[in-house]
């Protein structure tokens, strides 16, 4: 189960029962970010969407057929069992969060983002901030290349190992 994002990308402007368009937008958002479950509460209602593939933990069958994580020390300890988020077939390097916290795309509210899709980055270059326990941690790129995808939204909570950026390795053009 992935952690749920707090808040949503688009707050409904009206209170009261939400309309189909909003639900469709949420579904598109879920697909874009490979979310299995989405929950939003506010404006007098609560919306919860769960993709059908996710087993509701009551059936023994669901539990008997999980993805097996082979936890042998010989294997790379950092290899995630989670399938890599849908990216194109090309070789991309995924920058993952090394800490748990809240993702921010800019150094300060209102400031321009550290990077955007299409930017070239170098190793050591700050890409974002993940705030944890009131400390702003700059997350640096560990590769040189072009930002081809940003997986998370500013203000979204992220867990350890969560995919943040996809970088197509290469030199500055």
């Amino acid at each position: 189960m992935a952690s749920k994002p707090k808040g949503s990308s688009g707050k409904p402007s009206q209170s009261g029962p939400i309309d189909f368009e909003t639900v469709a937008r949420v579904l598109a958002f879920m697909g874009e970010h490979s979310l299995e479950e989405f929950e939003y509460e506010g404006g007098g209602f609560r919306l919860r969407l769960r993709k059908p593939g996710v087993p509701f933990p009551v059936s023994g069958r669901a539990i008997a057929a999980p993805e097996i994580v082979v936890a042998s020390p010989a294997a790379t300890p950092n290899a995630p069992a989670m399938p890599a988020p849908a990216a194109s077939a090309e070789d991309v390097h995924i920058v993952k969060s090394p800490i748990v916290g809240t993702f921010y795309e800019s150094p300060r509210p209102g400031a321009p983002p550290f990077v955007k899709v299409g930017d070239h980055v170098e190793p050591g270059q700050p890409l974002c901030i993940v705030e944890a326990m009131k400390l702003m941690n700059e997350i640096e790129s560990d590769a040189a290349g072009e930002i081809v995808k940003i997986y998370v939204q500013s203000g979204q909570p992220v867990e350890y190992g969560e995919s943040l950026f996809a970088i197509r390795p290469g030199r500055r053009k």
Partner: protein
Amino acid sequence: MFQKVLIANRGEIALRIICACKELGIRTVAVFSEADRNALHVRFADEAVCIGPPRSSDSYLNIPHVISAAEITDVEAIHPGYGFLSENANFAEVCEASHITFIGPSPEAIRLMGEKDQARRAMAGMGVPIIPGSEGAVPNEDAALAAAKEIGYPLIVKAVAGGGGRGMRVVRSQPELIPAYQTARSEAEQAFGSPEVYMERFIERPRHIEFQVLGDKHGSVIHLGERECSIQRRHQKLLEESPSTAVTAKLREEMGGRITAALKKVGYNNAGTIELLMDEDGSLYFIEMNTRIQVEHPVTEMVTGVDLVKAQIRVAAGQRLSDVVPKLEFRGHSIECRINAEDPETFTPSAGRITAFQLPGSNGIRVDTAAYTDAVIPPYYDSLVAKLISFGSSREEAIARMRRALDMFVVEGIKTTIPLHRRILEHPDFAAGKLDTHFIERLAPAQQSVAAK
């Protein structure tokens, strides 16, 4: 009552806490390392946050990651379980500073009881007996003689700086004292660089007896009886039961009274366990206090009917003990066997995938486990696979049910200590209640007929 609680643990205890939360209508957040992505506690929690790579120090013991996970999921309280951060006073303080309720005692109580010498002095000062001993190092032979008069025989002379059996001498009578004192000192100097030794009463065949306590935030403290945990190997408990065959109702009341009076004085709240040793004469001495819920809490739950984990949550939320435990009654007998993923004879760990997992059931059997068919027991954490608990109206019935349940517990793919437990329960000393902490050493090596199963 809390709306949402984060469980800062894994395995069977994380599941246990999720159970209690579900029953109380509390939403749950699980944290997990990458090795536990398919663990049951992750599946059954309402939300889950990955907090690090497999190693405990990088994940379950990583305070910033745990607190961060609590913040992003907006929980009101954290239950630390046992082990990991449960007795980390610093962690309890960080929770407080982050405005998250730590479901456990105060940081001060954790600190006080965490330092063994301090805890012993505190308890002794409040009428709970401790093992007679010298207060600190014994500087010379005259002091040794004087100390021996106070302590009585048999006693042990031990290196202050050491352990592991070196710089130790058991003394059974006065003529042996000075030679033993001198030898222990020179051994200690050679092994640990310091000749300092202290002395304390030596108990040849101690019984490990512990009392479960519960306090609320309004000054009340009660005890919920004792557990006997004498069946241990290298200080790791294998089997526990309640009540103890060595504790009379009178002793229970007397010692229980002293303990609760002492804990009221320190303002203890939430769950805890007072560990004691019983000598051959039946006297109890305080050893240490564990300021958390313990692995073997189920046997107390079975004989009192009190759900200890729910009680922890409720007192942490401010409820009074008089509401949480309105009436305490002891009924019947309960035994717990810790089923570990280990070779039952060599005790080498047996990590790997469980290929078959069939639990016993029926009347009087409870199993607390996070294992399942196809689960992989990772090598990074402890080897506990399941806790098998029996309950009966008498000790004989609890034993009969446990034997039957062990026979019907199927675990394939890994080795477990089930055969060892069968041997323990078949031993005539066990049926007779003749227990002490050397019990396991007296078990005969396994015979073919038992080992073959």
